[in-house]
């Protein structure tokens, strides 16, 4: 029992040590932005470029502009390993330092943290992942998931397929396969897929990939070969993606009929299959490449000065730029918050308001040095925390992603009712879910 005593002692000692650095970080002349990231664990291949892009952009703002509105950003990464327990631990360890936003970067962690956001008054950005229903601002005032939901993504993919097939009516009798990560993330599109399938008369084939089996999909692809679907749609992440691409190439599935969601479009997802992956399609909502002035600023201020972990040749890759997009949203929300409140050192509550009035017009994109990097963000407001913005389709040419379509708008009218219903369902199941009390800044 005494050992336990020692242990408790050690624990006490460490708690005693903690406030020291906590108070350090919480100094009022900076804005604390924790970035949950995962550079370790099974999803590290996707996690590393995103983490790099996220922190490089914010650090670039510090270097180039001296932060936002003259206030330095205190950027701190917290390693989650894509593990829920560690994510919760990260949330707890950062919470006390007055973060202005939570950036969980994992649907699993997001789900755990959604109920806490309103209690702890920290807005949470789950950019195009997490709980789709959280787009309903009335029910989830603290959660933001722009620029689009998975349902939006699915609708865009169906739209693209219909376009290729020659119209929605041509979908009738077709078979569309859906290979997905067998968890909350991959399962979310299922109801909409069901609706579409009924509406347009195509048959769906489901190929779930259990989390433990991400790197062993031969069974699923054997079935794909047997079923011979006309199209394959993929909702994959991490190691699941390159495996699926390789497997698809192995069974000689036509790669230009294989479409992934935006989380299946990393450079490292397609590259291992090399030329065999040529033609593989994914959705994307951020630009690829280093041609953007802002990206050049990152290279100048961060990459070339060595203030980063990023390898220079990885800058501009899809997921790296995805990370930049994510940080850009955070930065814009903070900037908005400063504008709305007139304060410099803004709080979580302020930033929530900043998110609710998030607008990035074509012009603003240009101001940011990111012209054409993303579709204009125009629809985020108190009621809609997502906006259902457009994305485009990109294709792997064996070396790089190539943008092959213009912005494709989602079928918002199909998606929105589903969202409303899901949000309602969530609220009824979670008895005692708080009613929205937060005021709305932009009545428009």
């Amino acid at each position: 029992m005494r050992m336990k005593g020692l242990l408790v002692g050690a624990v006490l000692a460490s708690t005693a040590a903690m406030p020291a650095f906590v108070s350090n970080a919480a100094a009022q002349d900076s804005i604390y932005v924790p970035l949950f990231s995962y550079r370790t664990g099974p999803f590290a291949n996707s996690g590393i470029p995103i983490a790099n892009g996220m922190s490089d952009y914010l650090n670039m703002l510090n270097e180039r502009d001296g932060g936002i509105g003259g206030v330095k950003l205190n950027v701190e990464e917290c390693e989650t390993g894509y593990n829920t327990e560690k994510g919760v631990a990260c949330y707890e360890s950062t919470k006390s330092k007055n973060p202005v936003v939570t950036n969980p970067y994992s649907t699993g962690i997001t789900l755990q943290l959604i109920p806490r956001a309103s209690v702890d008054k920290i807005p949470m950005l789950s950019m195009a992942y997490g709980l789709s229903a959280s787009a309903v601002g009335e029910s989830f005032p603290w959660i933001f998931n722009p620029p689009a939901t998975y349902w939006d993504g699915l609708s865009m993919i169906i739209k693209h397929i219909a376009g290729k097939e020659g119209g929605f009516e041509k979908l009738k009798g077709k078979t569309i396969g859906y290979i997905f990560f067998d968890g909350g993330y991959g399962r979310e599109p299922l109801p909409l897929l069901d609706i579409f399938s009924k509406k347009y008369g195509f048959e769906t084939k489901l190929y779930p990939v259990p989390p433990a089996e991400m790197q062993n999909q031969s069974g699923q692809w054997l079935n794909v070969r047997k079923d011979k679907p006309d199209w394959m749609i993929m909702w994959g992440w991490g190691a699941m993606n390159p495996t699926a691409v390789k497997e698809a190439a192995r069974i000689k599935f036509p790669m230009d009929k294989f479409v992934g969601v935006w989380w299946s479009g990393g450079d490292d997802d397609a590259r291992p299959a090399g030329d065999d992956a040529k033609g593989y399609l994914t959705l994307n909502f951020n630009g690829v490449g280093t041609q953007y002035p802002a990206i050049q600023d990152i290279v100048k201020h961060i990459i070339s000065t060595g203030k980063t972990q990023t390898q220079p040749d990885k800058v501009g890759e899809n997921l790296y730029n995805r990370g930049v997009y994510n940080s850009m949203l955070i930065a814009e929300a903070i900037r908005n918050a400063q504008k709305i409140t007139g304060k410099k050192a803004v709080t979580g509550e302020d930033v929530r308001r900043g998110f609710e009035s998030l607008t990035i017009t074509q012009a603003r994109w240009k101001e940011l040095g990111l012209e054409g990097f993303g579709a204009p963000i125009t629809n985020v407001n108190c009621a809609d925390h997502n906006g259902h913005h457009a994305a485009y389709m990109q294709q792997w040419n064996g070396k790089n992603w190539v943008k092959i379509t213009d912005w494709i708008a989602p079928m918002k009218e199909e998606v929105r009712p589903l969202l409303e219903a899901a949000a309602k369902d969530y609220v009824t199941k979670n008895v005692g879910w708080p009613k929205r009390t937060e005021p709305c800044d932009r009545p428009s």
Partner: protein
Amino acid sequence: MFYREAGQFKTSYRADMTVFPITQDRIGIIVILLIAFIVIPLTSSNFMLHAVMIPFLIFSLATIGLNILTGYTGLLSLGTGAFMGVGAYACYKLSTLFPGVHILVWVVASGFVSAAVGIVFGLPSLRIKGFYLAVATLAAQFFLQWCFIRIPWLVNYNVSNAIEVPRRTLFGVHITGPEATPQARYWVVLTIVVVMTWLASNLVRGRIGRMWMAVRDMDIAAELMGIRLLNTKLLAFAVSSFYCGVAGAMLVFLYYGSAEATAFSINQSFAVLSMVIVGGLGSLLGSFMGAALIFTLPILLPQLMAGLGLPIQSATAEHITFMIVGALIIFFLIVEPHGLARLWQIAKQKLRVWPYPY
């Protein structure tokens, strides 16, 4: 050294058979309990309580559960994660089906569901032993996890396929859901863990504990004592699963707040098994020590490194933590293959004969 046992004598078997026959140990445990119940919640940060102490306690309980099966009864199981999951899902279903009943009732009741499931999967243990049994429990793990993912009824048809924890109170204080303060949750967890540890210690010290150990050590002789092997093994499965089930329910209701099936994956089984092994087979104290080393250290180490002001990237810290924890586990297992509990036992023995060497 501080063990001064002169003058501590027993005049009855009752006194001789208490958990802590040595006064210094009794004082020690009281001090630890005081610290645990009062000092820690009053002085620790929310992070400490929520991210360290609560899961540490919950995993300790799960480790006790597995220890009952593996350490005391000698039955190797790789299904701990799934049995925890059964507890979690059972608790979720029960608490949403009967919202009127107090949540803590369901936390405990979910243990019984888990126990029932444990008994079913324990049936093969009469015929198979060792690694073969481990494989059978592995099947349980996969089957149950499959159930968690495939049976939407278990999650009340949530699209996210996750359990979401309802808000519940105890004496008007939130203990589950986001409004529950870490302190409140910590107290609830601590109380349950302390009570269940006490019950487990009663059990393993009595007839049933001896039956388990007898089956573990020499089943032929046990049979000759009139111990029915199947009943004894199934009882071990039931009790073990009960503990794991309660731990699983607490994990979701008092720690995560919501959970997906992945929380109860094979990794969780291995984690708990390594806690048992590192802590020491057949030791309740070891269960706590194992949980502390395997679970708490990886969380505290990066914090400590950051606290020391080492300019380390979070991922690097993570890697270093991995290495340190791995090295520590190997170190402890080399120094003492019977786990931390045995290490402590030896240390205690040395303290008792202090300053003599033997």
